[in-house]
């Protein structure tokens, strides 16, 4: 008899175990979700533009050319074959002589005035829009051209990487796909397990009822035994059991605490905040596809506390020519006509009590925009990528080595640090976690 009872008890026990297992598995998947997110983060190597070995030109010259190109040319020209404002520059060094290009870049109008055949042709082809003159030295122009060539070679060498973000190859998602597959597999096991358990319970119940019937009919039983055999499972006993009650209460309290702590800690954290903006501006298009340098629009990001939201006149640098009819761009025109500035919705809201300075991080620290703002070049609608909590700031300050290279401010400090400590010279080791660095 005892066996039966223990069997029933075991059944309930098993159901409870199954419950626990289910819980564990769901939490497990959650944990994996966050892991996934982490992998996704790490996957985006900010500012990684390493190209394959290209051409014969000196990489230093190409680098210099790249910087010049990004700051001066990229607004109107792509290094590929896309037309932005002016023509794409792929292959331009083959189509025109170097001396022609130099005189064109230095003063295109003069070249047109002189009646140069190619110059007039290209001028007319692009709606007689003059290219501004640039006061570059010949060497600088050569470095830009070297960069353009290099880009063309890169494109030729690895054609797949030139494709836009939409054309991302399936292989890129290996990590996440794998985790997805593992997740599916677990689900199946779980379902099978539950089915097995249900079958087991039903079987056991059947067996127990069979046994009971057999005992009642075929055996003479003592009164006591009969009582035990016919005893019905008393649920009120579980309900009244102190241990169960305590356990349930405990679980309830723990879950509640966990949930409320989670919520409370999350108050004011707007990670993922992606409000609708008055104009559907796409960073994916501008920063991603057209590769316009962040600094072109957020013009004070290297100089000031604030990166600054571009004023309408910066939009007009290009949009006085491009896509004038788009209803979104018409909104800018209307704002200018009505003399009413555009009211963007602020996404990154640091509390008043903390001081943050962009130039400290970008220019002095050499931190890439994406480190804090995430894959901005892939965002159609910008969202808050980082939590912007103090813990997040401090973590970074503790781990990030100071950008001391070539900065005379740090020379002596680096020496002092090296003489006294073996660890990296991080922001924190230079006082970067002290209260008054951000709170005053």
């Amino acid at each position, binding site marked *: 008899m005892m066996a039966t009872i223990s069997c029933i008890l075991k059944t309930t026990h098993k159901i409870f175990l199954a419950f626990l297992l289910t819980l564990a598995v769901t939490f497990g998947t959650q944990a994996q979700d966050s892991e996934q997110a982490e992998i996704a983060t790490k996957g985006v190597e900010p500012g990684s533009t390493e190209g394959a070995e290209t051409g014969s030109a000196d990489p230093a010259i190409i680098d210099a050319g790249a910087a010049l190109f990004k700051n001066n040319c990229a607004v109107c020209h792509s290094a590929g074959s896309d037309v932005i404002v002016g023509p794409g520059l792929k292959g331009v060094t083959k189509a025109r002589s170097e001396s022609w290009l130099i005189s064109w870049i230095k003063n295109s109008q003069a070249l047109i005035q002189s009646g140069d055949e190619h110059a007039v042709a290209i001028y007319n082809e692009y709606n007689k829009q003059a290219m501004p003159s640039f006061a570059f030295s010949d060497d600088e122009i050569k470095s830009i051209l070297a960069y353009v060539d290099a880009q063309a070679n890169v494109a030729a060498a690895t054609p797949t990487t030139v494709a836009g973000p939409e054309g991302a190859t399936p292989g890129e998602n290996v990590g996440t796909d794998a985790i997805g597959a593992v997740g599916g597999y677990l689900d199946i096991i779980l379902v099978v397990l539950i089915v097995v358990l249900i079958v087991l319970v039903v079987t056991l119940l059947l067996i127990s009822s069979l046994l009971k019937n057999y005992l009642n009919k075929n055996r003479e039983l003592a009164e006591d035994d009969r009582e035990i055999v016919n005893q019905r499972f008393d649920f009120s006993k579980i309900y009244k059991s102190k241990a169960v009650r305590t356990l349930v209460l405990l679980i309830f309290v723990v879950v509640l605490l966990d949930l409320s702590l989670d919520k409370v800690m999350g108050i004011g954290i707007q990670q993922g905040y992606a409000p609708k903006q008055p104009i559907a501006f796409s960073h994916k298009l501008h920063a991603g596809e057209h590769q316009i340098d962040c600094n072109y629009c957020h013009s*004070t990001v290297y100089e*000031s*506390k604030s990166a600054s939201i571009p*004023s309408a006149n910066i939009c007009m640098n290009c949009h006085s020519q491009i896509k004038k009819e788009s209803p979104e761009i018409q909104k800018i025109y209307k704002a200018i006509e009505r003399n009413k500035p555009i009211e963007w919705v602020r996404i990154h809201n640091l*509390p008043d009590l903390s001081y943050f300075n962009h130039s400290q991080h970008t220019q002095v620290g050499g931190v890439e925009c994406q480190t804090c703002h995430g894959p901005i070049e892939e965002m159609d609608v910008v969202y808050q990528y980082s939590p912007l909590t103090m813990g997040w700031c401090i973590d970074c300050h503790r781990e990030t080595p100071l950008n001391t290279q070539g*900065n005379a401010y740090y020379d002596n*400090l680096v020496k002092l640090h090296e003489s006294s400590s073996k660890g990296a010279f991080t922001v924190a080791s230079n006082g970067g976690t002290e209260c008054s660095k951000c*709170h005053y």
Partner: protein
Amino acid sequence: MQDRIKYWKGIEELENTPEFAKHAHNEFPEFLPVGEGSGQETSGSGKTHRRDFLKLLGFSVAAVSLASCEAPVRKAIPYLNKPVDVEPGTANWYASTYYLNGDYNSILVKTREARPIKIEPNPTSALTPIGTSARAQAAVLSVYDNNRLRTPLLKGKEATWEQVDKEIASRLGSVSGKVAIVSSTVISPSTKQLINEFGSRFGNFEHVVYDATSSSALLSANNGVVPGYDFSKANIIVSINADFLGTWLAPVIFSKQYITNRKLSADKKDMSRHYQFETIMSLTGANADIRVPIKPSQEHAVVSALYSAITGGGAAGSVEGIDSKALANAVKDLKANSGKALVVSGSNDPSVQAMVAAINNSLGANGSTIDAATPYFVKQGNDAQMIRLINEMNNGSVGAVFFYNANPAYDHPLADKIASGLKKVGLKVTFAERLDETAALADIVAPDHNFLESWNDYEPKKGYISLAQPVLSPIFTTRQMQDSLLTWSGNSTSYYEYIRNNWRKVLTGDFNKAWEQAVHDGVLQNGSSMLAVSNTFTPATIGASNVKAAAGAIEAVLYEKVAIGSGVEANNPWLQEMADPISKATWGNYVAMPRKMAEEMKLEQGTVVKVTLANNSVIELPVLVQPGQAQGTVGIAMGYGRTTDSMPVAKGLGANAFPIATVANNSISYTSPVKIEKTNATSEIAQMQTHHTIMDRLVVQENTLAKYKENPKDVTEYIRIATHEGPAKPATISLWDDYEYKNHHWGMVIDLNSCIGCGACTISCQAENNIPVVGKAEVLMRREMHWMRIDRYYSAVEHEAKDYETMEDPAENPSVIFQPMLCQHCNHAPCETVCPVAATMHSSEGINQMAYNRCVGTRYCANNCPYKVRRFNWFAYSNNDKFDYTMNNDLAKFVLNPDVTVRGRGVMEKCSFCVQRVQLGKLEAKRENRRPKDGEIVTACAQSCPTEAIVFGDMLDKESRISKVLAHEKGERAFHVLEELNVQPNVTYLTKIRNLA
């Protein structure tokens, strides 16, 4: 070592009154008016009931959970068309000029996103390169005054400028009689020229200049200009009632000159000697080496005695009731320093000024301590001219009168006659920025821009021209006075063009380039002069005194307060809450009375007395017992007793004392006999003096020049701790580990010998660090928020020769010493160890940091601070209608420094060593790949000090100024306050040296 000097902050400390003793032991009054205004106090208990508490609790929980549901949507609004030179988040600086009633400052205005937030001295200026006055510091708040007029007024009703222009044109076309422009001193060459051009179209025109604090007598004795005083060249300075460091003529210029010859350094071991004969205890008197109290009726006699002794060659005569020894010493010193001496007088008695001019002449001051070629133009008011105009108005012979920077219906002794005379004037126009007392009587108010919204030029001293440029676009629909005049003269050029054209006379080379440079520098100091000043004065002659001593009567003196001046800026809450350098009183005026008189009349501090003035008007003011006030005299400050609604901050404070000034023989005398009667009322004076007292410990140190010359190592007392190995430096016995500073170690040196106590630093600190104004009631509760205060200690002159009989009573003529007190940024800070939440801690650069958002308000830190420099936010001072001063309306909030947090209720705050400036300075250096240069990073107080008493810098940088000063002064004058506590402050003081006779 000499006998310890006994220092005291006020009479109550000297006498140790029960009230004082109670406050000394209880830094924070605990009373909190909770429930006040909620209608609950009718129950009488003032306690919150349980049900109310539960209701509130329930409501707050509901409110909090509702509020946390969704974060508010915030907007980011960029420019439509960004100006090239404005970058959001970075400050722009513009050179400009502040000038008001003689207080001239060449300034730099710091703007953020095109709004001014701070004023600093312009180092390019030759006159005021190192500091400003407190008033100039506060001027940045005045531009955001909500009570300025928003539109012009036509017969009291709002109007447009077109309507005003039409009205003026038609009224001026048919004007009969004299047309007059009444103004305070105009030192703008272009404005002066414009006024004359405007007047040239009328047959009978006069530009009448008067000053609320007149210098007519001085001008009449010196060919219509202020002599080119140079205090820096004087070894002996004798001043008779001239408060040249506080309010007289051009105090900031004079302070810099004065201190040049008072500073001691490695290669300068000598300093000037300064005698002061005065009635009230002025800022200048407080700095004098020898101060002698005199009655106004004795002034003439004292100057006569000096005059006859210096020019006559005889010995100094004696004046009855005056310390004859001091007078004799002054004469002896003056004679011995012929050519290096200077005598100045603040008197408005032509006879006195004529004698002073003769004395200076005889001392050979001309060409040395007075440069005749470069006189000052800061005061040009002619009393006689103004009095004549008032008579003409009353005769009905004036057809139109314009008031520019003038409010004579309030600040002229004949205000009543002006009010009656104005009724007979056909057209009354004022350019007042608000509806002041005179504007209330005018037909048309054509409000002028604030000076920060205007173009202008200035010439305070011959050959020193400066420019003012607008730093923000006009906030209200106001128009610059000069543009109004141009419009009304039918001239279509703007005043900007007008000034430019005018400057073609003085700029050489390519004009556009030179003009750009002049606007950039803010000053032009190539010796060329533009201002034409004509001498309209009858030359002063030596004669009898115009001050009549009525036998037995109390002589009252009308004086100017350092902060409030003649009352033009009385609506500025920063200035109202600035502690008077001497009395430490805020928010109102009072009857400053010598202790003996108060005892005789059985008056106590705060007792209200009835003062019957010369014109039989009666004012009621509380008594303030003022040590050093001359016997038989009282002093009452001008600028108070405002009744106009356009000055809500000043309204109802104190009483109008201008009727003390009387007119006789076409000149104004600022003293007259008064009757004083006791009343039963009391009115507490909101003084800051004994708040945060230091309980008779050795905190200030002083010594004599003789001793310093003898042995500089013997002038400062260093406290040693007795150990079994003999006396030891407190720093050598320590429980604490020392901090290691690798990068920077910020420190400050404050030279007590240079500090004149003017208070500019306190207002500069307030502007820089968003310090709230708390109002009179809270100051009375000892809850002012100033991070920096200037402690003023009196001491009896015990260490001097004991034969000064008059100095038996320590309160009769005490010595004064000033000590700026701020967070000492201790290396072993007592506050840091007691904070239960680590909200205050030490930085790796030596700064004692305060994290407001971590503070829970236990106030342990303040209780443990031996310097009493921590301030607690008892209330929310922003967005609170009960503190309607600087942070309660959108306009005034523009003045807030966006780099500094506005603190909330319940947190502690204190001096941060302007950490926002330190951080910015380091960032600038890092961005340019270099170390910060010395002098690049300065605190607000150090930058605004007109005497360079405060030096801030990196003590790890061996080449910095602070390191050099410390290296030189170590063991000589350098000391730490309360060194025996071994808290090791990063602020070092230098002993004050007095050049006693």
